[in-house]
Structure formats: structure tokens, C-alpha cells
């Protein structure tokens, strides 16, 4: 049976009344948790995981996948309107999306984000369907040395995106890597920098740090700047982007789809990295790089598309290899295993209804989400149109609940508060905290790759220069450095005169 025939059968499964309802429920819940700061896709999926135990595996996985990509969609709303990322992958959306909203283009920004998400999500599902078996093989061949260099490339890319100076960005990257080493050593189980605190055995909570550094510090800055205005609800006619905005978003949307798809296959924090990479690419190739950070359409469309394009491809390692690429897909794995369905190469033959039903439901889900995010955006925004005096304590309390509910740890709440103050001070003095967060999540894998490679080579650092994959990543790294040096040595006149700090 051809892939097309199987897809048709998948649509028959996904379009059943029950599965359609579950897809809609998942998308609605996902958008809501994505909109509300402090609750991300993982928390949203974890909350409804127990419900899937009473469903058949196809229905359960369809609902969870709906939450997963629904949260990716919803995360952009708070980023654009309040500069508070609903989930980690929306950090980049805050940069230009919020600036567009400040210029009265909130409606257009939300539309561009929603349409970009739709295109990215749909194309990545198409890619998942066509390339799943082949692409997974390629990524499996990447060894630990290449993985370590790949992480280095990802971090280097961050320096190009950050709003602070390269030196300050480097300091923040080091700080993120440093915090990432806290906890029991993954190989020797030796306690590292735990200060005799058991709560730190698994490392610092990423959720607490992320919400503290971004959410709480933003609240403190908002008070400092006297920012007490409400987010404006865009009218339906404001949702239509201007012709120029639409034209400017086409290229970034297509490039974002490709970047998101490729990065989605890489296990780790692909959806976060892909947004940074997309932003960096758009900024590099833009004729007006000085507009980035001040409401550039490309700076919104590219990353938001890339973010959603990872949802399809991040399922490739899970469905084809049984390896969850990101924590959210680990919940999908758990749901499938609870029903005795083991994802892997045999999934397509043993449980075709699950594989193709999920793919078909993702096509449907992406359509449902455009229906939710465009006409109903004002309803979601109304959730947030609470005056600052109410919003402040509400956001704070939701942050507390979001952080506490992950591990039930009061210690994480203290980390959240401390991170809020540190984030506020760092940002006041021109240190961008986003690179620290990215380094924190990449640090584990970078160290693991670094140590495994050195163990294999008996301590020979030459291993980091051998192998085709390693060479490709080094070439990429050199290219990035060369481009940055060229720009530093021969800056454009426009950059000299108008470039913001």
C-alpha cells in the first residue's frame, strides 16, 4: 500500500467523531496553556496524560499531539502582546512581535504568527510523512564529537542573535553552561555544586529559571518602566496584514519551515534552537538588519514558523526510533507505552492506524488552530486584557503554580524568585539573559558529547576534527565567525549610523 493510500486511511481514522473531538480538545487546551505564561506544552500534556489511559492509543496520542502543537501556537500570543513567552520556544517571538504590537500592529503580528505556524506545521507534517525513515538514519550516524561541535555551533549562533554585545553574550553563555553543571554528574554520579542540597541533585529547574529570568524580571521591569497599559485587543479587520507585511513574511516563512524541520530532528531542545537560528538567518540576509529588534516582520515570521515546523519533525525520532527528541514527546512515548504500543521502525506496520491517524490529525489540527488563532484571537486576548493591577498578581501566581506543579518543590519557587531578581539586575545593566537559558539546556548534551568523545579517543582532542559530520559543523562554525568578523571589520554605513546597541 502506498503512503498516499495509508494517509487516506489515516484521515478516515482521524476524522471519526471521537478523534476529531479529541483533536479539537487538545488544540484548545494547548492554545490555552500556551497563552498562559508559566504553563508550557509539557505541563499541559502532563496534566491531561491520565485522561489518555481511558482512551484508545490513537485517540490518546491525537489529543496529546494537539496540545503539543497547540501550545506552540498559543505561546506566540503572550509574547506578542505582553513580551512574556508562554513557553520557551516563544522567546524569540518576543523580540520583534512585541515591537510590532507596540507600533499598533498587534493584529497583523498575530496573523503573521498564526499563518506562519500553519505553514510551518503543515509542511513539517508533510516532511514527516515523506522523509521519516531516511532522515532518522542520518541523524543516528552523528557521533558524540560531532554532537559537541554541533552544540558549540548552536551557541555561537546565539551570539549573533543576542541584543547585548558579543562579550556580554559570551559571559551569559558561560553562566548558562555553569548552572547546567549543577547536580549529580551523569557519568560518575559525583555531586557537583549542590551545596549539600538534595533538591539540586537533578540540577536547577529549567522551568523555574526560565520563568524567573523572563517572566518575573519582565514584571519588575514593567513596574520600573511604569508600563501599566493593557494589551489592546485587535479588531478583526486589524488582523489582516498589509500587503508589504505579507510580502515580507513569505520568504522568512518558507525558510523558517525548512530550518524548523531540519532542527526538529535533532534531539534536545530543537524547537528553541530553531527559533534562534531562524532569527539569525533572517537578520544576516536582511537588507535592513537594523530593523531587527524594532518590529521587523521577518524577525517574527521566521522564528514563529520554525518553532511550529519542529513539531512534525521532532516526532520522527520518536515514531521511527522510539527516542523522544524533546521532553514533550517523552510524554507521547509514555502515553503510547501505556497502551502497549512501542514506537519504532515497526510502528508503521504493526500499528498503522496510530502512525497515519496521528499524521492525518496533525493536518486537521493545523487547520483547526488557524481557525482558533485568527477569528478567536480576541477571545484569547481578552483572557489577557486584565488591567496590570490584576494581571501582575495573576501572572505571578500562575508562575508559582506552573513551577511548583512540575516537581512539587518549594525550593523551585525560591529559585524562581532569585532568578527573577538576578534577571532584572542583569537586564538593567545590558546583559541579555536568553543566551544563558539556551546554554543551560544545551549544556548537558554538550558536556556528554565532549566527555564521551574524549573517552572514546583516550583523551585525544583530535577526535573533534575527524569525521565528515564534525567537518561539516566546523565549516559552519568558521563560516559564522567569518561572517561576523567581516561585518565587524567592514560595517555597512547604515549600521554605523542607525544601529541600536
Amino acid at each position, binding site marked *: 500500500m502506498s503512503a498516499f493510500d495509508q494517509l487516506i486511511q489515516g484521515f478516515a481514522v482521524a476524522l471519526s467523531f471521537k478523534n476529531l473531538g479529541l483533536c479539537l480538545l487538545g488544540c484548545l487546551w494547548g492554545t490555552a496553556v500556551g497563552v498562559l505564561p508559566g504553563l508550557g506544552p509539557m505541563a499541559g500534556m502532563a496534566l491531561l496524560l491520565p485522561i489518555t489511559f481511558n482512551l484508545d492509543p490513537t485517540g490518546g496520542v491525537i489529543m496529546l499531539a494537539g496540545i503539543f502543537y497547540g501550545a506552540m501556537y498559543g505561546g506566540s500570543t503572550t509574547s506578542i502582546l505582553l513580551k512574556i513567552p508562554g513557553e520557551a520556544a516563544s522567546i524569540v517571538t518576543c523580540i520583534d512581535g512585541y515591537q510590532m504590537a507596540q507600533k499598533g500592529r498587534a493584529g497583523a503580528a498575530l496573523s503573521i504568527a498564526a499563518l506562519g505556524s500553519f505553514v510551518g506545521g503543515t509542511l513539517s507534517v508533510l516532511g514527516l510523512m515523506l522523509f521519516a525513515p531516511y532522515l532518522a538514519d542520518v541523524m543516528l550516524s552523528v557521533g558524540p564529537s560531532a554532537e559537541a561541535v554541533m552544540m558549540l555551533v548552536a551557541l555561537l549562533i546565539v551570539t549573533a542573535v543576542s541584543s547585548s554585545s558579543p562579550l556580554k553574550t559570551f559571559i551569559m553563555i558561560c553562566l548558562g553552561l555553569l548552572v547546567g553543571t549543577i547536580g549529580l554528574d551523569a557519568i560518575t554520579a559525583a555531586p557537583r555544586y549542590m551545596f549539600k542540597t538534595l533538591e539540586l541533585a537533578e540540577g536547577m529547574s529549567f522551568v523555574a529559571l526560565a520563568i524567573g529570568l523572563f517572566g518575573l524580571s519582565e514584571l519588575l521591569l514593567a513596574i520600573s518602566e511604569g508600563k501599566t497599559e493593557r494589551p489592546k485587543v485587535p479588531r478583526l479587520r486589524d488582523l489582516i496584514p498589509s500587503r508589504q507585511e505579507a510580502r515580507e513574511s513569505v520568504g522568512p516563512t518558507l525558510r523558517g519551515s525548512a530550518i524548523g524541520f531540519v532542527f526538529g530532528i535533532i534531539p534536545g531542545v530543537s524547537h528553541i534552537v530553531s527559533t534562534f537560528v531562524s532569527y539569525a538567518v533572517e537578520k544576516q540576509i536582511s537588507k535592513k538588519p537594523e530593523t531587527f529588534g524594532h518590529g521587523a516582520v521577518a524577525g517574527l515570521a521566521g522564528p514563529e514558523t520554525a518553532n511550529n515546523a519542529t513539531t512534525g519533525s521532532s516526532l520522527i525520532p520518536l515514531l521511527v526510533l522510539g527516542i523522544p527528541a524533546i521532553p514533550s514527546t517523552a510524554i507521547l512515548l509514555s502515553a503510547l507505552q501505556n497502551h502497549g504500543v512501542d514506537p519504532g521502525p515497526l510502528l508503521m506496520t504493526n500499528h498503522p492506524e496510530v502512525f497515519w491517524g496521528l499524521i492525518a490529525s496533525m493536518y486537521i489540527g493545523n487547520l483547526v488552530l488557524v481557525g482558533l488563532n485568527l477569528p478567536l484571537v480576541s477571545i484569547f486576548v481578552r483572557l489577557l486584557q486584565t488591567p496590570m493591577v490584576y494581571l501582575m498578581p495573576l501572572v505571578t501566581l500562575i508562575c508559582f503554580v506552573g513551577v*511548583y506543579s512540575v516537581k512539587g518543590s518549594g525550593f523551585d519557587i525560591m529559585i524562581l*524568585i532569585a532568578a527573577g531578581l538576578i534577571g532584572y539586575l542583569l537586564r*538593567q545593566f*545590558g546583559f541579555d539573559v536568553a543566551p544563558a537559558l539556551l546554554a543551560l539546556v544545551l549544556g548537558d548534551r554538550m558536556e556528554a558529547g565532549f566527555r564521551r568523545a574524549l573517552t572514546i579517543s583516550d583523551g585525544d582532542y583530535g577526535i573533534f576534527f575527524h569525521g565528515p559530520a564534525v567537518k561539516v559543523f566546523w565549516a559552519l562554525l568558521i563560516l559564522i565567525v567569518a561572517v561576523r568578523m567581516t561585518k565587524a571589520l567592514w560595517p555597512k554605513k547604515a549600521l554605523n549610523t542607525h544601529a541600536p546597541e
Partner: protein
Amino acid sequence: MKQQAQTSLPGWAGEFVICLCLAALGGYWVKDALRLGLGSDGEIGAGLFPAAVGVALTAASLIAGLKALLKRAANPVVIEHQSLWAFVLLAIAAISFVFLGLFVSSFALVMVVLRLMGQRSMKRSALAGLIVALALHLLFSVLLGLQLPPEIWELFE
């Protein structure tokens, strides 16, 4: 939060202090990494990676601190006292959330913020606090059954 007071600090001084703190942090990381052990050929110690990162952080922070000190750019950074008071409020709310539960902390936080932000009626502030506390309790605790700190009435059971 009616205070309009603010403290203006020279930006370079703040940067310099932050860089010094970060350099010290990096130094501490290196010191402890040496205790953990850097390992030998074929057996990489748990301290090698933190040591490398610590050295990089210390070096970069010292350079950045030195640059800030030499440049002494006139870019004053204004720290609003409101923000610091808000932080104190959030910290108290966090402690009450952990020890007294969501209901009490949300009631108290909403009420206090409303009073500070100019809501003159105590009754109105208390009512708003009660509504928010009830709504959050119903949503997160009753409907979603999230893992939350014990509420104050559970402490007496």
C-alpha cells in the same frame, strides 16, 4: 506602590560589579572542579567541563569588567524603588504560597497589590482578593487537580 523614588547608578559601575561577581563565581567553579578531578586520558573527570567553563567565565568577566572600568561610559541606569518593593512583595508571596498554600497567598497578594496600586476601598480589595483566590483554587486545585502546596485548612487536619 505610590513611591516615585528612584536611584540612579552609573551603568559602568553596575556592569563592573556584576562582572566581578561573575568572575568570582567562575573562580569558585574552577576551585571546586579541581576537587572533583579533571581525570586522565581515557577517563575524563567530573570536573573537566566545569573547570573549562569556569575559566572561560572568569576570563571573559574580568575583560568585560576592565572594559567597563576603563570606558566609564555615562549611561546611568535608573533603579525604581517600586521594582525593589515589588520584588519584596513577590518574595513574601512566594514564601506564603509554599507555606500557607495557593488560596491564602493569592488572596493576600491581590489585596495588597490593589491597595498599593491605589484601590482605596479595603472592602473592594478584599472582595477582589477573595474572588481571585476562589477562582484559582477551583481551577488549579479542584478542576485540574494539580500538585500544589497544602492549603492552610489542610495543615490543621
